[in-house]
């Protein structure tokens, strides 16, 4: 596997326990380069342990971990991996007595940013994450949102090849959370490989190229949201509304309709997406004056619960 072509992260049958508690149990999945992979799962699913195993901060008790085609268990390779990774932990872990600049300068020095580039990188990262005006203030006085932004700025300062985000919006107000997610989206569009852990499904919506659903240290399922939708949400749905919604009930008799529900608006489950025009034709022919026809993709939340239901 060439160092720059294989997956950014490859876990194969990885196991890690803490005393009697098994945190990761035979976990296997890959993070392709240049993609955003979201680890979804409830608290205690083993997501944080995965981040720690990927950088080599923790050693696996079994199986194989490959990060950027290197083995984190080998000392020199582990150091190289950590130099090329940026991590935003669940708790931003900043130095409150130091200023924002000092926090960033510390990370830059530790992550071996060339000293001549440090000032430029700090200014760039601070500008990008909207904290340039607060850089001279002590971090102890930062709001939770500013701390999250500073943690993100610190994680990208050395231009990592792989970005690991552990619940990056935990404890943020909706506005700050949205801003942070926007910034992650921006980084992903810039070609960064991102592995993000979350239990907030809305957070992953629209960001994920690949979703790995975890529970009890195992990957229940993984794939792109589209693949998972096809697998766990096979029937396309359309929301339909009309001047007189009762006329919509005629849809139930159509041969390509698999399910029908009317609760204010009607939700129609079809056999194929291509059946939508036929549905519209049939309803118009029945005398309905349609005011809304909206094909619906499932939200990640609906998908997540469908997957869990299937596995239970």
């Amino acid at each position, binding site marked *: 596997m060439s160092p720059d072509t294989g997956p950014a992260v490859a876990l194969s049958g990885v196991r890690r326990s*803490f005393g009697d508690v098994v945190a990761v149990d035979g976990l296997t999945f890959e993070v392709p380069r240049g993609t955003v992979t979201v680890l979804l799962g409830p608290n205690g699913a083993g997501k944080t342990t995965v981040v*720690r195993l990927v*950088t*080599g*901060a*923790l*050693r696996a008790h079994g199986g194989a971990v490959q990060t950027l085609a290197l083995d984190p268990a080998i*000392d020199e390779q582990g*150091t*190289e991996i*950590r*130099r090329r*990774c940026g*991590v935003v*932990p669940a*708790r*931003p*872990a*900043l*130095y*409150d*007595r*130091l200023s924002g*600049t*000092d926090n960033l300068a*510390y*990370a830059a*020095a*530790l*992550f*071996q940013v*060339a*000293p*001549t580039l*440090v*000032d430029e990188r700090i200014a760039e990262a601070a500008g990008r994450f909207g904290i340039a005006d607060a850089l001279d203030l*002590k971090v102890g006085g930062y709001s939770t949102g500013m701390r999250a932004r500073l943690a993100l700025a*610190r994680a990208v300062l050395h231009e990592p090849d792989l970005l*690991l985000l552990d619940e990056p919006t935990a404890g943020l107000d909706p506005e700050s959370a949205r801003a942070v997610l926007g910034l992650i989206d921006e980084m992903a569009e810039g070609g960064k490989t991102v592995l993000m852990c979350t239990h907030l499904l809305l957070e992953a919506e629209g960001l994920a190229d690949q979703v790995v659903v975890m529970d009890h240290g195992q990957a229940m399922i993984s794939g792109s949201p589209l693949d998972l939708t096809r697998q766990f949400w096979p029937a396309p749905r359309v929301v339909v509304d009309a001047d007189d919604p009762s006329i919509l009930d005629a849809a139930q008799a159509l041969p390509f309709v698999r399910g029908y529900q009317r609760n204010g608006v009607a939700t129609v489950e079809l056999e194929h997406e291509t059946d939508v025009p036929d549905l519209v034709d049939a309803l118009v022919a029945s005398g309905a004056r349609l005011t809304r026809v909206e094909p619906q993709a499932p939200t990640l939340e609906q998908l997540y619960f469908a997957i869990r239901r299937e596995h239970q």
Partner: protein
Amino acid sequence: MSRRTDNRQPRPSWVIARTDLRQLMQARDFWMPLTIVALLFFVIIPTFLLLILGSVKDANLAKKLSDVVGSLPKDLQANVHGQKGPASASYALAVYLFAPLAIIVPLTVSSAVGAHTIVGERERGSGEFLAHSPATERQIYLGKLMASLIPGYFTAAMGFLFYSLVVNLIVGRKLGGWFFPTTNWWILMLWVLPPFIALALAVILAISARVSSAAAAQQASALATLPLIVIAYGVSSNTLFRGSGTAFIIGGLEWCGAIFALWRASKAVSRERLLGMGAA
């Protein structure tokens, strides 16, 4: 804000130490009491005692003070300069009896800093940042060691400077000129003291890496430091009471012990412990 002009990478251990020291400088509530302790032991108490000794007029008391000098080992009595009575007692006090301060004060400062250094990272959560950094466990340990050793040794050096001034200004006046530091004091400060602080820090850092809270680290470090203070009395007194050769041997033994203890203690610092695992 251009602060750097060259492209040399600082060593990770120095980066960690420098950042810890910078945080310490910002924590006035932490270093202020330690500075007061240093001032008390190196300046205020010696000044007070030496001034009192120097102002004794009563003949009876002067004789008793001569007896203090007489209680020193025979070969040292010959070294005690000055006239009989208060002047020679001042000399003895300044040169021989304050010696333990040179070790106890830096030991107190370094142990206070060292006790927090690793467990503090864990409590703040910044241990996670260090655990994910490219710094090796050895470099993290070295950084923490330097960050704890430098404040202690700096305090000792500054205290030594002020103490020398106090002794020379108060006692030297009576003995015809500045005489302090003596050779053995130089040996104590440059050869015996550094490994002693390092030895103590080896114990304290190993504790700091293992316990679960800063309060527990403080308690355990205090417990570990107590016997070291007793040893400090013996070591420092022996360094000054015996000849330079013995002082060099004591220092040499300490260096051996310190290097071994530091090597052993370096194994206590691991990424897992920085993440809060394996803490007692």
